[in-house]
């Protein structure tokens, strides 16, 4: 809420300047987000009086004005505004002034005539965006006076952020109350007095409330002979300072009183109301009405309407109707000051897509006891500023319960929650300064009555908050909780995540983070036909509309982005959940923790010392071997459609698939606009947590010399070498410590359709091995390979 510093001063003495006030309010829970001068620096801008207006000799659209600027002298000024006239009091910028838009005023020749200044519009002075014509000031201002002081622009606007639980602070008086609590001062209420006619209001109109749940209170007053005009300058400036546009004195007064008291008001042109009476009811099916903004609104039976004998005339608490608005011809006015259910206003405002200063107050919940005060205040102003005659009394249909709960507060409770003892006298002083009524039943028990405008206070804890925010949170000591709770720690899953992250970062990969939602066709882009993804009802875009079932699309998007940004490589991993549910969604989907990784482009940065090579399948397999060193994991040929049919591995643990890796199918890579080959893996690492936990069993390193032998064989070109390794492991017996493939070769002199594979076998025992026994084993190995795979020694 925007509020003028001077306006606040009407109701409470403020011992602080605007900046200090802003700080004090912020530290008491009313955050002031900005402190800005109402007007920019307007040095050398004065009040002037237009003595004479002549036609410009060279241009029909321009006028030559003679302006009296009091002690500053008289000036001849060229003015192009259509509304300039003799006898007007205006704002004049003289040579040396710099206007908020940056325009520097200096004597200028305009079409052959010297102009010694500028008659300004509100827009040119930065007061509003109104640049239809010059700003015509009241004639009681003295020419030559500096404009800022003369019209009260020497003010500061505070932008107060009011929390949802404090609708009472959406008003100048509400903020003044907070200030009074901080200073220990008193709030001065504004004038409420006015003269009434002898005729009671009841002789001319009636109000029927059909839905007292949606409308707990409706207060109406009736006025006649209202003189519609502009509101006074001071009121216009305060409305503008609050971000509202002046319209006419009646509308301005209703807005002014709403800002002042927080109670929204509405003025009906009484003569436009059928039968001159109001019915407060919900809309009938199919009813429509045109709101003030000119929109035709379809109404539903949940919406509360202020109606005349026939039709809806106002969306209660949200916006008035066009055909009953106050116009220049209006003579009689029915003034509404009502209370509406916050829930109904909220829902109606949402359903219509319509919010207003009024609805934003009602939907937070307003004190129902404030309607009469606001009405009286408006009547006072309407009589003084629009010469209104007021019929006697109010119609007041009131079914609201008196809301002044009583809370018993123990000072010990304050200490229990805050950890500091605040003396009961201080507690009483603070609560009373906030207009709570406090009776000290005993030093251990205070009986606190909550004022009606503080509907947010219900429990002792709420009172504790009131006490501590005024007492000062900065005075709170710093202590630590008594140490009798858990020993801390984290789950195996989180520990495993940390372990994987360390391994992969050590292996040179970068951790990525993608959105949990993506394109709804992500499965299809991966050539997969998995169950559909769970869709969001209200996504921010189609590209972020469905919960991911795999980490691969996000990582492939990342590769695609880096490729499009001329990067030559990407080695990324991501740890995160996928969302596995069924449609229609009836329960929470399973959130499965996964590891995804992707390799694309150059194996390493381009370098003189190494060949410029691209990542290949075996780079990825090496990383997977680093991650999964356990013999329990089975590595078999995979059949995931997202991957190259001949270049993928399915990882199994006790027959269950725990992951897959390989080269992404070129068609899928094309779907993601990835140039070249891309390698990826996805691992359901929840399934292998127990393997992470395994404790290694120590083995004595052998002290006897090992024997190394090489074996090179020629086999069919499509013979998987891994099968030969497995066979050698068995054939080598207990003494065989390790088999390493050190060369695989096809081409001359190896015959077509064949390849050579070379192995290094290391034998190790807890004794010195004899050549003869190794020879026997090697012969057995070769014979075995020959028999099973048709291998020939090379």
């Amino acid at each position, binding site marked *: 809420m925007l509020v003028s510093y001077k306006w606040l001063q009407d109701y409470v003495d403020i011992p602080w300047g605007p900046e200090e006030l802003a700080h004090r309010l912020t530290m008491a829970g009313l955050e002031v987000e900005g402190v800005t001068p109402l007007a920019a620096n307007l040095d050398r801008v004065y009040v002037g009086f237009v003595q004479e207006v002549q036609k410009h000799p060279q241009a029909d659209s321009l006028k030559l004005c003679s302006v009296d600027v009091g002690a500053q002298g008289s000036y001849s000024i060229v003015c192009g505004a259509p509304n300039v006239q003799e006898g007007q009091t205006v704002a004049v910028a003289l040579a040396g002034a710099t206007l908020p838009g940056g325009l520097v005023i200096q004597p200028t020749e305009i079409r052959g005539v010297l102009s010694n200044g500028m008659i300004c519009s509100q827009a040119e002075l930065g007061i509003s965006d109104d640049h239809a014509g010059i700003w015509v000031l009241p004639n009681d201002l003295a020419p030559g006076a500096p404009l800022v002081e003369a019209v009260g622009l020497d003010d500061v606007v505070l932008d107060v952020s009011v*929390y949802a639980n404090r609708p009472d602070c959406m008003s100048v008086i509400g903020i003044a109350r907070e200030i009074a609590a901080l200073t220990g001062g008193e709030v001065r209420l504004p004038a409420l007095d006015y003269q009434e006619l002898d005729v009671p209001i009841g002789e001319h109109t009636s109000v029927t409330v059909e839905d007292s749940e949606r409308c707990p209170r409706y207060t109406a007053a009736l006025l006649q002979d209202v003189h519609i005009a502009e509101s006074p300058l001071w009121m216009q400036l305060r409305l503008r300072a609050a971000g509202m546009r002046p319209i006419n004195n009646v509308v301005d007064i209703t807005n002014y009183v709403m800002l002042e008291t927080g109670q929204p008001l509405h003025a009906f042109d009484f003569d436009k109301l059928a039968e001159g009476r109001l019915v407060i009811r919900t809309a009938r099916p199919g009813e429509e009405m045109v709101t003030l903004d000119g929109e035709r609104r379809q109404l539903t039976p949940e919406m509360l309407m202020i109606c005349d004998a026939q039709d809806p005339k106002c969306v209660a608490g949200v916006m008035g109707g066009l055909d009953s608005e106050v116009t220049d011809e209006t003579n009689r006015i029915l003034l509404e000051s009502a209370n509406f259910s916050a829930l109904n206003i909220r829902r109606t405002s949402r359903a219509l897509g319509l919010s207003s200063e009024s609805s934003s107050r009602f939907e937070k919940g307003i004190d129902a006891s404030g309607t009469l005060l606001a009405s009286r205040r408006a009547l006072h102003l309407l009589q003084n500023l629009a010469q209104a005659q007021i019929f006697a009394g109010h119609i007041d249909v009131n079914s609201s319960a008196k809301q002044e709960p009583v809370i018993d507060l123990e000072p010990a409770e304050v200490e229990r929650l805050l*950890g500091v003892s605040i003396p009961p006298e201080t507690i009483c002083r603070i609560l009373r300064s906030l207009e709570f009524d406090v009776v000290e039943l005993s030093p251990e028990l205070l009986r606190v009555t909550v004022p009606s405008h503080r509907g947010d206070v219900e429990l002792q*804890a709420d009172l504790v*908050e009131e006490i501590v925010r005024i007492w000062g949170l900065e005075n709170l*000591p*710093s202590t630590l909780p008594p140490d009798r709770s858990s020993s801390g720690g984290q789950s195996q899953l989180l520990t495993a995540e940390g372990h994987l*992250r360390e391994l992969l970062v050590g292996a040179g990969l970068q951790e990525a*983070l993608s959105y949990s939602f993506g394109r709804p066709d992500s499965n299809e882009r991966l050539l997969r036909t998995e169950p559909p993804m769970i869709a969001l009802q209200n996504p921010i875009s189609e590209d972020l509309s469905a919960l991911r079932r795999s980490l691969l699309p996000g990582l492939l998007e990342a590769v695609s982005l880096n490729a499009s940004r001329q990067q030559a490589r990407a080695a990324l991993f991501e740890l995160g959940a996928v969302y596995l549910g069924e449609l229609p969604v009836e329960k929470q989907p399973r*959130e499965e923790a996964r590891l995804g990784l992707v390799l694309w482009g150059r194996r390493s*940065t381009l370098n003189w010392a190494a060949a410029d090579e691209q990542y290949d399948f075996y780079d990825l397999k090496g990383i997977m071997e680093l991650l999964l060193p356990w013999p329990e994991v089975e590595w078999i040929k995979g059949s995931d459609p997202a991957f190259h049919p001949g270049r993928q591995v399915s990882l199994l643990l006790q027959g269950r698939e725990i992951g897959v890796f390989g080269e992404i199918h070129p068609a899928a890579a094309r779907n993601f606009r990835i140039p070249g080959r891309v390698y990826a893996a996805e691992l359901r690492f929840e399934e292998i947590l127990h393997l992470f936990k395994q404790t290694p069993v120590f083995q004595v390193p052998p002290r006897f010399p090992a024997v190394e032998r090489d074996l090179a064989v020629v086999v069919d070109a499509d013979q998987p070498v891994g099968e030969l390794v497995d066979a050698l492991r068995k054939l080598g017996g207990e003494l065989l410590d390790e088999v390493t493939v050190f060369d695989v070769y096809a081409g001359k002199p190896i015959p077509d359709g064949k390849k050579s594979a070379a192995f290094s076998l290391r034998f190790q025992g807890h004794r010195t091995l004899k050549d003869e026994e190794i020879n026997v084993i090697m012969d057995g190995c070769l014979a075995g390979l020959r028999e099973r795979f048709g291998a020939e020694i090379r």
Partner: protein
Amino acid sequence: MLSKVEEIKASALEACSQAESVKELEQVRVRFLGKKGELTLLLRGMGQLPAEQRPHFGKLVNEVRDELESALAARETQLFQEEETRRLAAEALDITLPGRPMMRGTVHPVSQIIAETKSIFMNMGYEIVEGPEVEWDYYNFEALNIPPDHPARDMQDTFFITEDLLLRSQTSPVQIHVMENRKPPIRILAPGKVYRADSDITHSPMFHQIEGLVVDRGITMADLKGTLQVFVQRMFGPDTKIRLRPSYFPFTEPSAEVDVSCIMCAGAGCRVCKDTGWLEILGSGMVDPRVLAKVGYDPQEVSGFAFGMGVERIAMLKYGINDIRLLFENDVRFLKQFSSQGGRLC
């Protein structure tokens, strides 16, 4: 024959000093000291001398041989060193060429902040807890004292999946899960992803929060202040100060916004803190008694505090990142900038 000895000695020492390589030196050794070497032959011919001269002669030859051997050894050492010096000089490399590249992995800045925070709180005895991201309305709102149509729902533009299921808009529902399943004392920290329908340079539809909750007998707001004081000093440096400002959250009462002295300017005022010297980084408060009652605790017996912070906001402040969306683009040039932070990855 004695003069012959002197003659051989002179020419041997001469040859030794003239040798220009270890190989040449070996030839000198063979020429004089080998099986058929000059000195060896001389000694062998000793039998031709009169018996009384033999001891003297033998001693002389042995002395010469010893002298020659040590001269050869000295020369060999010298030659070896000279040769090695030449070889090393020839082996000099261009040390200005870059080394074989080792690819440096990086932890995502969001993970780094989470890891650091977890570590600080685990050291204070907190247990790290996670909760579901797809959440029931009840846990995300109702149990947290935010009934349907509560104005606080406006502050969080929530993604819905069905009428009752949503993507959690805060990590606070984890508080409810934990309290429903355990009795006090409770001391937990819950990091995780949260979602709000908002996207601009300071808002991302997905971001991370870290939630803390302590419930026990006698937990006070002063404990909250002290705990957060410890946290910010370990996170941002020992001189960091905190400031509590009254605020409003539906599930805490009293509530406080927590500011830290600006980590850029140490409180002097700068662009990042908009010249206030303070940065707002945490929301906190005493758990609202209505929330405690909803999970079946007795608010008269136990009390607690809760706090929550946005991880991206801290990362952006710490690293000076000006657009939150950069964090989720995965541009490798962005990611590689966060490699210099040490340790604490898990």
